[in-house]
Structures are given as structure tokens and as C-alpha cells.
């Protein structure tokens, strides 16, 4: 069947939900990785601990993928495509916005906290749990955004 304007807008929503948090996570994971490499050069034994810190800003990308996939399933893109009105398509785009925008920004900011946490692991490895929790505080808002996106998508009937 033809792809209507509504479908195009909805797909844009799915694409943004994956693209923006993906960019944020890529930047974030990269930033923490750079900082961590300095410590690994001095003390390779700390690799495992630092890897966990590096993984923290990566979750936003997964949340984005998750939201994108929910939209793909909703539109039936993996099986039988359904007709989407312009209104419904725009609604889907709107529903994608929370995780798209908050995911992008929170990943970068979380990465800064995690990168600072690398210093904690370098100096006092036994206090690593605290560094992780500090970074996880930022992630709360990505989780809330994801939650909103899921609930909004659940509410829209296409």
C-alpha cells in the first residue's frame, strides 16, 4: 500500500527517537572512554570497573532504540503496514519527542558526571559505587522521558 503523509511523519518520529539519544550516548560513551583510557594506561587492573562507568551514558541510546521499535511495531512496519492519518502520525512524532530530546541531553550530561567519577575510581576504587550512583541520578530524567513516551504511544490509537 502507499505510504501516506501520516506514515512519513510517524516514521520521522521513530527515526528521531533513535537518532538523537544515539548521538548523545555515542558522545557520552566516547567522553567517558577517553577519560578512562588515561587511568587504564596507569593501572590496567581497573579496566573492569571503568567499563561499567563507561556503559552508564550508553543506556539512553538503548531507550531511544526501544522507543523507535515500539513505533515501528505500532505502525506495523515489520508485517502488514497500516494506514496512518496525518493527525495520528503527528501524534506519534510528538510522543517520540520526550525520549528523543531528553535522551540526547541527559546522555551528555551523565557522561560528564561519569567522567568525573573516573577520578574517583582512580584514587579510591573501593568507592566506585558512589561514583556510579552520582551518574545514575542524571539518568532518572531519561527514564522518566522514556516512561512518558511509552505511555503516550500506548494512548495513541492509529
Amino acid at each position, binding site marked *: 500500500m502507499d505510504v501516506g503523509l501520516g506514515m512519513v511523519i510517524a516514521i520521522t518520529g521513530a527515526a528521531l527517537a533513535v537518532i538523537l539519544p544515539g548521538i548523545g550516548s555515542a558522545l557520552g560513551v566516547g567522553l567517558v572512554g577517553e577519560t578512562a583510557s588515561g587511568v587504564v594506561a596507569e593501572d590496567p*587492573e581497573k*579496566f*573492569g*570497573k571503568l567499563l*561499567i562507568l563507561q*556503559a*552508564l551514558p*550508553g*543506556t539512553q541510546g*538503548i*531507550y531511544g*532504540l*526501544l522507543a523507535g*521499535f*515500539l513505533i515501528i511495531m505500532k505502525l506495523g512496519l*515489520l508485517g502488514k503496514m497500516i494506514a496512518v492519518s496525518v493527525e495520528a502520525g503527528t501524534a506519534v512524532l510528538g510522543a517520540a519527542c520526550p525520549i528523543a530530546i531528553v535522551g540526547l541531553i541527559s546522555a551528555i550530561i551523565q557522561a560528564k558526571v561519569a567522567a568525573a567519577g573516573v577520578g574517583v575510581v582512580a584514587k579510591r576504587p573501593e568507592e566506585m*559505587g*558512589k561514583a*556510579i*550512583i552520582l551518574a*545514575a*541520578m542524571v*539518568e*532518572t530524567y531519561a*527514564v*522518566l522521558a*522514556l*516512561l512518558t513516551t*511509552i*505511555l503516550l504511544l*500506548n494512548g495513541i490509537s492509529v
Partner: protein
Amino acid sequence: MGKVKMSKLTVVSHTKYREKLFSVLQHLRAVHLEEVSKTPPIVDEEKLSELNHSLTQLKYAISSLLKFKKKKRSPIETFVELDHRMPISKSRREEVAKSFIGNINNFSSEIKKGENKLAELNSEIAQIEEKKESMQKFLFLDVPLSKIGETSQTNILLVRIKDAELKKIAKHSEHIAFEIMQKGPSLTVILVVAKGFEKELKKYKYEPINLPKVEFDGTPAEIIKELERKRVKLIEEKEQTTESLKEFLKQLEKAQITYDYLMSEKKKLEATKKLLFTKQTFTLAGWVPTNRVDEVKRAAEKATDKVCYIKVEEASPKEHPPILLKNNWLSKPFEIVTTTFGLPNYFESDPTPYLAPFFFVFTGLCLTEAGYGIVLAIGALILGWKIKQMRSFAFLLFLIGVSTTIAGALIGSWFGGLIPLKPIWFDSFKYPLTFLILSLVIGIVHLVWGLLVKFYEEMKAGRIFSAFADSITWAVLLLSISGIIAGSNGVLSSSATKILTYVAGGDVLILILTQGRFEKSIFKKLITGVLSLYGLIGYLSDVLSYSRLLALGMATGVVALIVDELAKLSMSIPIIGIVAAIGVLIIGHLFNLIISTLGAYIHSSRLQYVEFFSKFFEGGGKYFKPFSSADVYTKEVQ
């Protein structure tokens, strides 16, 4: 339950017994020493610096030797350091160390010599290899290198030159002779130039080639052969040195034992700084777990031939006894959640047993994937079976696995949709709102539980009015408002809702009247009371924070579903479809399992620290660190 009770111990005895008493206490590992005097007494600095010198020497030698020891590292060691320390008795350690101490200087200087030799050899080998490399480019020359250079009548040069340019030079055949050594885009040529012609030659375009300098003569091929011979000889020498260093590995164990022995001696000297001395006596103070007081007392009396005065007291509220957590087998694995945040202070309860059931439920809901739960539980069993040191953490992981399996079977899925089992209670994908309400209700229960813990703590401390005014009031308000919201959705009957409204109203009144009780003027009391109602906003955001249980729980399920879809897509690849699909399934699910478990652990911890602990937990305790012998390379057994 929760924490070990501590008693304060004071020992006064004659100075000559100090050494012996310290030895006994070091072995007992039961006394957390405290400073008695603010001004530390003078210790034997000479002995201290002597010890430090020996320790540095040994440390260098041991770490050099460890490089030659083949290390078997399991992949798990990337994340945790495993304990490879050898158990040893106190008397054996002393015996070995005393026989080895005289040997330290010789032992470490021999190793240092060997190490330096190795470094020298390595740099020589590297130099030779570099020369060989550069000589490789001149293999086409079949004349000895010494032939190229100045003679009495001529200059012999090796140059790179263009064909046309060479032809021009060739015209001066009375001054110049040449031989082409290598052809190519430009020629490599040996030019024989008569003296006095150099100025003329500068008019032509050519590029002189510098030959690498070598300390002996021959054609490049011969030189390379000679260099190779030298290299082999150096490598042989290097192997010999390594072998002779490896001989010292036999003494490594002794060196390590001696290191620990000397380190223990050093700890004794440093602990002396915590004592108070008079001319004839010393005073020692510290904390002892109450159940070990008798044991310590008896040992101290024995060490001092009963020439001592020992006092045991209860901890007073002004003091800060150290904390040693003690929980039963079921809540013990959750201690790590508490200690990651910090230790409780001595006069409050250990929150571990309070948070354990909730942490269990939260991690399960954050994953909500029965298949993953089973994998986690089995993985944890294997981990605990293989690595004894990680038993406690493995048990925690096992509990998380069990919880995840239960949550997954009730409202989630089995590996996405791989095993088509219907959830027993409700499908979280079809009814995310029900999942959300479930999360928030669990959150309210958690918060009310936190307030009840606070109530208990205040009652225990004898602050009965605060116990009711600051915790029960909020718990009632939280519950009654939740009830009213439930009632407005038709869950409760309208008359019940009405009663709850009155309860909430009355409660608000009590809050207004009590929350300002520390202010002086009546006016300020009322204002502070009314403003305290803003606390409700705090509680609202606390409750909403639990919605992460839904978000994370669904995230695991959806990513599992994506993995399954990808596997389905890769089935369509011809021939290798099945293999590819299985690969995608294993790698995808494993990745999701690891990332989601990490997230579940972190966010379940956060709900304890930020939402739960803020209701009652003060913290600020310090670890119980008993005075003990040093166990760097070996472990002293009791």
C-alpha cells in the same frame, strides 16, 4: 541483628610488655585502636627507617620476580581481584622471616643487577635490529662500505640521479667514472670524482645517499650477517640472564613471607603512636566486639603476666564506636547495597534487613524477564561454585535471578517472545498502566515502610513525641491521600473515601500544629507548620520516581523482543540462516541481560539511597578495622 555491639577497652601496663601485647593483639584481630593522647609519643625512628628500607628493597625484588611468574588469570579477574594469598601460621611466618632477613640485601641487589642487565641487553638488541633494518636497503651494493669515501686522488660517492642528468655528467669522462648499481625511476650510482672537480659537479642535480654507520667493514650483505650473529648472541645472553633471575623464583615465597612479617612489625611501631606513655607505663585504648571482650582480656593478662589494669565500658552517645555489620544468611548479601552508600552510625539500626526485601522486588521488576532470571540464577550458582571469594555477591545475584524469574513469569515474557508462555497475572505490554500503578503502589509501601523505620528509631531513642509527629503523621497522610485517589477511581466505596478525606484533613491540621514546634513565636510556629505541607511535593516526586520500575522492566522486554525480531530477519539469509539466527539470539540476549542487570542493580540501589534512606538514615559510621598483622602476599591463619 544488624550490627555488632562494641565495648570500650582500656589497658594500662608496664612498658616492657608492650611488644608482647601488640603481638598477641595483632594475632587476635579484635581491637580497633583509638588514639589515647593527642600528641603522639616519639617512636624509634631509626628502627622505622630501617624497616622501610628493607620493605622497599623487598617490594622491588618481589614485583620484578612476579613478572617472570606465569600468571593464570581467569576472565573474571578483569572485574575483581581474586585472592591468591597463601595461608600461613603466625609461628611459621616468623620462623621463615627470621631466617631470610639477613639475606634481603644480597637477594634484592642480585635481582636489581639482573634487571639492569636485561634492560641493557634489550636496548642493545633494539639498536642492532634498527641497524639491520637500515642496512637492508643497500643489499644491492656488492662492494665493501669502506670503499665508498675519500681516497688520496678521488672522492667516491653513492648518489641517486636521473638518467638524463647522468648522461650530462658522463661527458666529463676525464674527471669522472661511474657504475650503475641499481636501476629504477632514478638511478643509484657510484660516482668516482677526481679531486678538484667537486665545484663543477655541484651544477648537476643529484642526491647523495648517506650510508648508515657500522663499526665494522664489509658489503651490506656481510654486515647484515654479522649483525644477525651478534643479535643471536645477545638474545642467548638475555635468555641466560632471565634464567638466572628465574632461579630466584625459588626464594620468592620466602621473600613474600618476610615482607609481610616486616610490614607487621612496622604496623606495630606505627600503632605505638596511638598509645599514651609515662616513664614506666603505657595506656592503650580501643573498641572490641562485646562478645570477644573476655577472649581479649584473657590474652592481654597472659601477655603481660597479669601486670596490667583492664577496664571495659559501654559506648556512650558522645563516642563514635566503629561499625561491624552482622546479618543473617538471607540479608547478608544485601550488605553491599548499604556499604556502597555508607555505614550507619553506632546508635542507629543497620538498614540492611529493612531494604533487603524491597531490593529483591525492585531488581526483579526492573528486569521482568523470566528467561533472563533463570540464566542469571544459573550463572550466579556457577560463579559462587567456582570462586569462593565471591560467594556473597553470587548469592545476591542468584536472589536477583529468582526475583526476576518470578516477576517475568507473572507479568513479563520468556526471552522476548522466544518461549510463547503467557504471563500468569497480566501482560505488562498490553497493560502498561497496570504496571505503572503496581510500581507506584510498591513505591508508596516502600516510603511508608521507611517512615515506620524512622518511627521505630525515634521510639528507641526515647523521642516519643517526634516519633508520632514526624513519621506517623506523614505515613497516615501518604496512605490516606493514596486511598482517596484510589476511591476516586472507584476502587473504594464512597463512604470509605469520605472517611479517608476526614483523616487526611485531620492529619494536615496536626502537621500544621506540630511541624513548627521548634520556632519561638506563635506566629512563626504556624507559618513553619503551614510551609511544612510543601513536604508533600517531595513525597509526590518520591512516589513518581518509582515509575522507573515500569520503564526499566519494559525496556528489558522490548529489547529482548528486538533481538528476537533481528534473529527472525537473519533466518532469511540463505544457507547460514539458522546459524546466524542462533548467533544473533545468543549475543543479543547476553548483551541485553548484562546491560539490563547493571541498570536494574543501579536503579534499585538509587531507590534505596534517595527515596528510602532519606526518611530515616543518618549514617556516618566508620569501619571496624582491627589491629592486625599485614597480609599483603600471605594470609595469617588463626
